[in-house]
Every structure is written in structure tokens, then in C-alpha cells.
């Protein structure tokens, strides 16, 4: 047995305990084992005290539930432990660098949370009379003004509930404009670069369009030759969906020409605004000739990602598309703000409604709070620091890793897996970073780069934090270059080892089911 400096035994090698755990309890130090609520709760337990019903005659008319839900309840202390223990198995921005490219995992300011919980916003109903909620309409109007000014666009639809919903909004507006021109049945083709987010082609299809993929050139931008060739026949062109800065972290240098050509072809320009963080306050997309762009409030404007949502995707529109914006929208009159909800009058050309009520109010409050905090000057600094941080990471990492393209990047740095030895894949590098205490970068996206690793540090990382992160990535990359076999087993120190996704998909178990009653063991 080897001894440490205190003369005590050094950490023993981990011995699995049969249950996949290194201890009898299944816990280890601060990391507590936590079973499913169905295994720890009972159907009689409840953590909510409610007055007893009076037992009066019901008015259900016989339409009553037949079988109980059998859902377990937990008392409050049990529930708190359950969720706090589970939370400790999650990585989060508040723990460290979360360098997911294209996701903009920046700090979530807590003032935003506090403001969204003011009863004046959290405790108002979407169908209250409008004179009772003028402050809410005013806030939405103020946020709309910020969004229009920052993008240089004349109109914005506020109701889309996430980025992909905003894409849907923009593409439905384009479809409606084509209907108004009498060309909806002929103009069906939407050009989408190969590097696009998966939501772009999925959205185009969901709106009844067809997708025609454009190649990327060796500089990671739209291949203009291919683009022009796609426009040889313009009769069926509906438009283009282009992310800018694009998913390679690069500004589309030919964007103005792309806009001109698509307009000349009779189509519209949808810009995916997922990467707006790189240019906010420095470039207005409206000056680039776009017709529509969604803005992910949960990326650029710091509303929390919440483990997968909720988001919010207000969509700015050009003069050409503004008349077709969805209901509801807000107009300012002499006696205050008014919601336009019906497809008549101001909204007679609208393509319709996308969802119930008026959009993600809770996210609107957070985003406006963030904008007011930063101001126009601070938002410009946001973009500059985000781009500076990404370029700093790129320069440091390219000592070992292979940059996908030459030159400066915007807000994210893209690498291919070329530097890795044979047999070591991007996923091995990603999982080894987990052992270093970091969330991995975006892997295998964009599809145009082999074994892509896309790193977006955002502006809310300090230089010291970035330096520590880079040292870890460099160390892992060196191991990958050397072909170190142990990478294939990573992570070793996370709450879980690598999970078997194939098994999960082959025979999906999508909910808990009670265990089969155990046969009584024969004596």
C-alpha cells in the first residue's frame, strides 16, 4: 500500500461494486445516488397541503376519470433532495466554460430572472382586458423597438416561441408574399447551404417548399459559382435560407451580392440569426439586404437555455414581408397600446396565427432587462469581446489542432479532426474534455468539415478562464495526436461513463414501468 504525505493510504484504485458503483450506497462523496420518483415516492404521499373538499355533488355529468394516475408524490424535503441531487449531475454555465458552438452559452444575468418574476409580469393573464395590461404591451413594444434598431429592419413579429419557430414565421411570410404575387404554386425551391443548421431544411419542408442544397467553397463560405448555377432557372425560386455569420464561424463575404441575386431571381432572403451575437451593435443585418431573420433571445440576449428551452424567436421582417406578419401584433394608438388579434383591418394580409396568445412574455422581460443593462455601447462590446475570445481560442488551439479554414473567425472557432491519430475520433476528444471538467464543444457540426469541433467561448469568459480551458484542450489534443488509447474510454470521472445510445434506440424505454413481481425464491 502506498502512503501519501500525511502517512495515510493514497486513493485506492476504483473497484466496481457489481452495481456499477464504487460504494455500497451508490453515492460517492458529494455525488449522491438518486433513484426515480417512482422508486422513492408513494401514491399517498403529497408535498402540497390543500383544504379538504366539501364533498358536494359534482357537475361532471358522468365524464369522470376511471383509473387513478398512480403517480407517486414526495414530501417537500424529499422533493428538494431529489432535484438538488439530480441537479448536481448536470454541467452548467455557472460551473464553467460551456463552449458549444452555435449555441451561445453566455452568462445568464440574475437581474433578468428577478424582473421576469415581478407579479406585474408573472401574474397577468394573456386574455385580461387590454386596459389592464398596458405595461406588458409597452414592454413588448420597447423590446420590439430595440430589436428593429439593432437589426436595422422595419418590422418584427414577436410571437414565435423559439428559433425554429421564428424560421417558420419568416418562411410562412415568404410563402404568403408569394401567394399575394400569385406565384406560390410555381416558386417552391429554397436554396440552403450545406453548412446550415438542420432546422433550416426542416423548416422549408414544413412550409411546403423544396430544398436545394448549395455547396460550400474551400473558404467555408457559399460557393458563388454553385449559387449562380442554381439560379440559372429562376422561375421556381422562392428564396434562400442563409446563416450569417455562418455555422463555420465566418462572415459571408458575398452576402450583399447573394441578396441582390436572390432578389433579381424573384426570391426572398431568409437569414438565420442564430449567430447574431458576433455582430450585434457592429453590423445591422438590414444593411445587408435580408428580408427576414429570427433572433434567438436565448442566445444573443442571454435568456437562459434551461436545459433545452424555453426560447423565444422574434423575427424581423423587411418592408416586402411586413404586411404578412402573423397575428397578434401591437399597435400604438392615442389611448394606449392595442393588440391586433383578428385577420382583418391592420392584419388583413397576415398569414395567420402561429400559437396561442402573444409570445414568450417571460423571455421578453429578461431580454429587455439585458438590453437596458448593456445599452447600445455594451452590446457592441459584447460582439467585440465574443469575437476576440473566439480568435484568442483559435490562435492558442491551432498550435495543436487543425483549423478548418484560414484567417480570423467571428464568434466561434472551427477545427477538423485531421490532427488526431488514426482511430481517435472527435467524440473521444469531446468525452476526454469532460474529465478535464469542461463541457465539450459542438461535435460533428457543421457537416461540411470532417469530424468538426466548433468552439464558441462567448464574451462572458475571462482571459484566465479561457487560458485554463485552452490548456486542457491542448493537452487532450496532444493525446489525440499521439493516438492515446485511453481516450476511447473517456469520460472516467463524470457521474456516468459513456452511455449506450444504440441500445436506447433499439428497444426504446421511454417511461418507467413497475418491475415485474419477483418470483418467490424456492427454498
Amino acid at each position, binding site marked *: 500500500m502506498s502512503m501519501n504525505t500525511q502517512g495515510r493510504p493514497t486513493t485506492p484504485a476504483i473497484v466496481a461494486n457489481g452495481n*456499477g458503483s464504487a460504494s455500497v450506497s451508490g453515492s460517492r462523496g458529494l455525488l449522491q445516488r438518486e433513484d426515480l*420518483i417512482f422508486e422513492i415516492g408513494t401514491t399517498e404521499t403529497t408535498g*402540497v397541503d390543500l383544504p379538504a373538499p366539501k364533498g*358536494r355533488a*359534482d357537475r*361532471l355529468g*358522468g365524464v*369522470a*376519470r376511471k*383509473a387513478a*394516475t398512480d*403517480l407517486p408524490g414526495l414530501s417537500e424535503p424529499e*422533493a428538494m433532495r*431529489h*432535484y438538488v441531487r439530480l*441537479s448536481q449531475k*448536470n454541467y*452548467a454555465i455557472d*460551473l464553467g466554460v460551456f463552449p458549444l458552438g452555435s449555441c451561445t452559452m453566455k452568462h445568464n444575468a440574475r437581474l433578468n430572472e428577478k424582473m421576469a418574476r415581478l407579479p*406585474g*409580469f408573472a*401574474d*397577468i393573464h394573456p386574455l*385580461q382586458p387590454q386596459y389592464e395590461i*398596458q405595461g406588458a404591451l409597452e414592454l413588448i413594444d420597447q423590446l420590439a423597438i430595440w430589436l428593429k*434598431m439593432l437589426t436595422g429592419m422595419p418590422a418584427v413579429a414577436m410571437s414565435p*416561441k*423559439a428559433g425554429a419557430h421564428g424560421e417558420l414565421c419568416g418562411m*410562412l411570410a415568404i410563402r404568403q408574399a408569394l401567394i399575394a404575387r400569385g406565384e406560390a404554386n410555381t416558386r417552391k425551391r429554397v436554396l440552403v447551404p450545406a453548412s446550415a443548421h*438542420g*432546422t433550416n431544411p*426542416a423548416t422549408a419542408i*414544413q412550409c411546403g417548399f423544396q430544398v436545394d442544397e448549395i455547396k460550400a467553397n474551400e473558404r467555408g463560405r457559399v460557393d458563388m459559382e454553385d449559387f449562380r448555377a442554381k439560379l440559372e432557372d429562376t422561375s421556381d425560386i422562392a428564396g434562400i435560407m442563409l446563416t450569417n455569420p455562418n455555422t463555420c464561424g465566418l*462572415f459571408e463575404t458575398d452576402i*450583399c451580392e447573394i441578396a441582390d441575386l436572390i432578389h433579381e431571381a424573384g426570391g426572398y432572403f431568409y437569414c438565420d440569426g442564430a449567430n447574431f451575437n458576433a*455582430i450585434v451593435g457592429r*453590423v445591422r443585418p438590414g444593411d445587408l439586404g435580408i428580408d427576414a431573420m429570427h433572433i*434567438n433571445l436565448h442566445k444573443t440576449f442571454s435568456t437562459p*437555455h434551461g436545459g*433545452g428551452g*424555453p426560447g423565444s424567436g422574434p423575427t424581423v421582417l423587411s418592408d416586402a414581408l411586413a404586411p404578412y406578419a402573423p397575428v397578434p401584433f401591437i399597435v400604438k394608438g392615442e389611448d394606449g397600446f392595442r393588440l391586433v388579434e383578428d385577420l382583418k383591418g391592420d392584419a388583413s394580409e397576415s398569414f395567420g*396565427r402561429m400559437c396561442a396568445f402573444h409570445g414568450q412574455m*417571460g423571455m421578453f422581460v429578461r431580454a429587455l432587462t439585458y438590453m*437596458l443593462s*448593456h*445599452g*447600445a*455601447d*455594451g452590446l457592441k462590446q459584447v460582439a467585440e469581446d465574443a469575437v*476576440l475570445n473566439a*480568435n484568442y481560442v483559435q490562435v492558442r488551439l491551432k498550435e495543436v489542432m487543425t483549423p478548418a479554414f484560414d484567417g480570423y473567425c467571428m464568434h466561434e472557432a472551427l477545427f477538423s479532426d485531421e490532427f488526431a491519430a488514426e482511430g481517435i475520433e472527435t467524440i473521444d476528444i469531446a468525452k476526454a474534455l469532460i474529465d478535464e471538467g469542461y463541457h465539450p464543444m459542438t461535435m460533428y457540426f457543421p457537416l461540411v468539415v470532417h469530424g468538426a469541433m466548433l468552439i464558441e467561448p462567448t464574451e*462572458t469568459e475571462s*482571459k484566465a478562464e479561457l487560458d485554463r480551458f485552452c490548456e486542457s484542450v491542448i493537452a487532450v489534443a496532444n493525446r489525440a495526436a499521439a493516438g492515446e488509447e485511453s481516450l476511447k474510454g473517456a469520460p472516467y470521472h463524470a457521474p*456516468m*461513463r459513456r*452511455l449506450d*445510445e444504440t441500445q436506447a434506440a433499439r428497444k426504446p*424505454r*421511454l417511461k*418507467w414501468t413497475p418491475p415485474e413481481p419477483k418470483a418467490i425464491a424456492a427454498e
Partner: protein
Amino acid sequence: MRYLPLTHDDRKVMLARIGAASVDDFYTDVPEAARLDGPIHDLPSHQGELAVERHIGELAAKNRTASEGPFFVGCGAYKHHVPASVDHIIQRSEFLTTYTPYQPEIAQGTLQTLFEFQTQVAALTAMDVANASMYDGSTACAEAALMACRATRRKKVILSGGLHPHYAAATRTLCEAQGIEIVQLPAAVDSELELAKSVDGETACVIGQSPNVFGTITDMSSVAEAAHARKALFVSVFTEAVSLGLAMPPGEMGADIAVGEGQSIGNPLTFGGPYVGLFACTQKLVRQMPGRLCGETQDADGKRGFVLTLSTREQHIRRDKATSNICTNAGLCALAFTAHMTLLGDAGLTRLARLNHETACDLADALEAIDGVELLTPRFFNEFAFRTKMNAEAVLAMLDEKGVVGGVRASRLIPGAGFDDVIICAATECVTADDIEAYADALKEIV
């Protein structure tokens, strides 16, 4: 600027390391005409917390909150009490500031809660499987229609006269873009069963709602049977999730797809969003589902764990062949739902549902006793419609003057259909006996 850690010196050192003279070097790909030289004009500069709090606080103060006095507004969003611990749980940094759990080894917290959420939603709706959430009930309804068209390879969708008009509109918008025919039955308080007569051999699905927008609850088993007889699907919608603790759930009526709004459990009103769309279906249809699914598996040591699964349905893998374009969903609202549901358990949910129903019954008794008030909803959970001899908008305005927010005028949701004198009102556990008395007293004076 309090959210930006880089110092001036850091920036200088970093630029030097990169070999750039200034950040302007990074923006040289931007066409010159589109480069801004300074901060955008006419927008304010940065402000401290105190100043921002004042600004936002002033806007908040202009709104009349649901807790300020008697409040009876429903129609798709409901004022319920949310336990204090729920908001604490969803503000845990590890839940609030994390991403979609694409790296399952360091996202078991999110994944296990999603697995529990899916199990709870399946049990609540009495369906086989549920997904990890949609944006809200209305978009879930639209996606259900598309899913039914995929599954049946048909292009006709029939909507009941009691389906929430916003749900109907959202469904119409999405379906028409794909050339799917929408048949909308005329709005009526108690007509969900009419769907059974409308279904034909071309129909992909019929969509009915219980409780419907007028509060009417209906056993739609006959609709399911009629749909199945013609190889169509039955989509069952609800906007009040608490109702499922007492009223018949979609699965007990033979629904193929159940969709609804989960806001009532765990989530505040927040003027309409963010909410959480619930989406459940039969086992047979699982591979046609939109959205994320969490499934059970094992790690390399044989330990039970959870991952996102069946992602070959989704846009990030399948792109133009995906079942939906949805990416971000309602993760944190789903966490609020599952935490509240876990605190309730079956015992708590049943009691909460009964309490809602009894409160609404008390309200109905009190209003029905007034001369000139006609209750329209024959069977209800916590919401019903009534008619007076006056214009509903005028009645609500007069109620408001007496401090009572009396409900929604039906004509706001269904304009031009003869509902000008109809008010839809809801009573949850938050409504007190005094609130009911105040409502009845005020209404008596008005009508």
C-alpha cells in the same frame, strides 16, 4: 460593464497574441457600407441594476395582476398556486444554465427529470408514451395534426367547434402551408360529438377538446370509434392539465394522440408564455412523434442512465426528412411541471382537481341564481360559459369597475359568431368564497 470580464489589458494582450491591431481586423469581411463606426444612435447606454430595475418595475406596476382581487379569467391559461419550492428548483444553476442534454454523461439531472416528466404525462393523459415537451399546447396541437397526416398518409383534418380558437388557428396556419385541408365545425358550447359524423375516408384525424374552450367536458369515445372505423386518428386536446385529475383523460376515450397545455401545473401565467406543450400518443405512433424523447439505457459500467433517443426523427440528424423542425422546446417549464407534479402525487392532484371543481360549482350556483344569467355549459370542470341579456364586453367592463375580473368575452376568441353576450369564466383553487360573493353581488347589480 458588469457582465464582461475582459479588462482593457486583457484585450491588448489577447490582440497581440492573435497578431491583430484591433478588433476591427475581425470585421474586414463585412462589406464596407455595412460597417457601423460607433454604437447605434437613439438607443441608451448601459445602466446599473438599480436603474434597470426602476425602468422595468415601472412597466410592471402598470399591470393589474391576477392576485390583486377576484379573478376568473381562463380559456387556455389558468391562475393556480405554485409551491415555493418549484421556483427554487428551476432556479438551480445546474438546471437553469445548462443546454439541451446532448452530452448525457454530464446531463443526467436534466435527463432523469425528463424521463420522469414523460412518465408523468403518459400517466396523466392515460397514454402509452409522451415526449419531452413542445412549445405550448397550441403548437403541440398543430404538430399532432401534421403527425396524423404523416401516419395516415391523408391530408384532411377536422376541428371541433369547441377547440380553442387559437389552437385551431395555429393548426390551420401550419397545415395549410403543407396543402392539408382543414374543416372547421361551427363554434358551439357542446358539440364535440359532431366530429363523429364528419369523419370520412379521406380524414387523417379529428381534433376534439375536453374540457373545451367553453369549459364543457365530453366523453369522446364515440368520436374515437367513428374515427377508427374509417382508419382516421382521434386527437384529444386539453388546455387545463389539472382537469385530468378528475375528468376523463384522452387515453380513456381511445385517443391516438393527446396534446395539451401544461401551464396549470408548475408555471405562472406570465401573459401567455413561456408555457409547456404536452404531447402523448400510442406506442404504435412513437416513431412519428415530433420533438425530443428521453430513454433509458446503461453506461459502460452497466449503470442505469438516460439519453435523448430516436433522434433520427429530428431535424439535427434528418434535416429535410425530420418529423418536425422543432429544436428548443420548453425544458425548464417541463421541469417546473414535473417538480410540481412530484409534490402533488396522485393524492395531491386528485384533491387539487376536486377543489377546483367544487369552487367552480359554487361559482356556478351563485351566478345561476341571478335573474338574467343563463348557464350554457352542461358539464364542466373548473370553467363554464354563461349568457346575460347584455353585451359581454360591457358587462366585463362594469365588473372591472367593481374590482372583479370576470372572465373572457367569448367574442374576443370567436368574433362574429353570435357569442356577443357570452362570458367564459374559470374558478381555480385560488378563488375564495369572498371572491365568488363579490362576483355574484356585482353581476346582480349589472344585469
